[in-house]
């Protein structure tokens, strides 16, 4: 157990080993560890970001769905309104058409009636003249008595 050159030898070995460790062992291991740390941190951040994006997308989906539902409701509502309107319109048109047909029919009837009346009147005039001629047993001058006859027809 003498103190001798071993002391110096050990010191030199110590210096060489520490130098080697500092140059070739420590830096690659620590840089790998740090790199891994960053990688993990990045991964966790990305996962969180993904979660947030997913939540956002879900929210958007809900929103879009709601909007679509509202729109559908609106369209249905409008369609119903339009349907009612169309029915109303059709009803109006039908009524008008009916009125028109009724009016035309009435006119026709009036016309027919008038024609019948005219015919009747003419026949009555003829009958009246014939009747009067029979009564008077004489020839009635139709031309002379036309005015009287017309008056008679008017009173019919």
């Amino acid at each position, binding site marked *: *157990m*003498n*103190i001798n050159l071993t*002391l110096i030898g050990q010191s030199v070995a110590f210096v060489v080993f520490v130098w080697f*460790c500092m140059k070739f062992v420590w830096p690659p291991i620590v840089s790998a560890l740090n790199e891994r740390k960053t990688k993990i941190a990045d991964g966790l951040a990305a996962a969180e970001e993904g979660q947030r994006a997913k939540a956002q997308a879900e929210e958007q989906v809900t929103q879009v769905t709601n909007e679509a539902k509202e729109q559908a409701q609106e369209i249905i509502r409008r369609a119903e309104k339009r349907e009612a309107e169309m029915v109303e319109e059709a009803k109006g048109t039908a009524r008008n058409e009916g009125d028109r047909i009724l009016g035309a029919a009435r006119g026709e009837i009036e016309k027919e009636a008038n024609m019948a009346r005219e015919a009747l009147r003419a026949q009555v005039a003829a009958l009246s003249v014939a009747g009067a001629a029979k009564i008077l047993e004489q020839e009635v001058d139709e031309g002379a008595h036309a005015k009287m006859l017309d008056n008679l027809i008017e009173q019919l």
Partner: protein
Amino acid sequence: MASSEPLTTTGYIKHHLQNLTFGQFPDGTWGLAHGAAEAKAMGFWAIHVDTMFWSVFLGALFLWGFRKAAVRATSGTPSGFLNFVEWIVEFVDENVRGSFSHKNDLIAPLALTLFVWVLLMNLMDLVPVDWIPEIAKLMGIEYMKVVPTTDPNATFGMALGVFVLTLYYSIKVKGVGGFAAELTMQPFEAKNPILKVLFIPANFFLEFVSLVSKPVSLSLRLFGNLFAGEMIFILIALLFSGGAILAVAGGVLQWAWAVFHILIVLLQAFIFMTLTIVYLEMAHSHH
């Protein structure tokens, strides 16, 4: 006590505590010392071949293994040995971060080297005391002390390295004046210039002792613990020569002491590393 020549207990212990020393004999020739007296006669210019071999071998083993891991280290999923290496590196890194508050790229690798190297050297203590010396004897090597940290040269050598770094960083961070002031202007402080000068010798004495005691205590703590552990292993090994009952008792004791010694081995390596970090932290900070 597996030895061919008749050995006394004292001889056995002495043999185990003798390093394989290479140096110059008094007659001028160079060679390996045969026995403690010859080794002592060689003086300072002799070298413990076994201590140097095992410490360099274990240090190289550590650097080889860790370098292999460092080359393979990626930011991907680690596995196997790389995992183990990363665990140690993170452990050391955490300790350095905890005790060392300055920016210095040397401290963490230094701490890692000391921790693993000292741990490996200490672990040699768990190899049964006669195995490697007996193999060495078969190869014709007379002495073989396999635990470098039971050689004060090894522990002092490392502590000396740490001490030089402490001085270097003290002067680098605080300047020569700042370091000198730290050695002479405290713990006794005075506003009066005359008193200040008067306090210098006392301050210097106290600070110098505390400065020098750091590497001494650092190395002696490690050496003392491991030397004592080794000594107990040697004493337990003596039991194997005392008949069947003592041999069984020796086996049990050896196992028990080895288990307990794992704690010491680990703890001393950790303490050596932590104190190194603390001393360097003190060198970096102003008082």
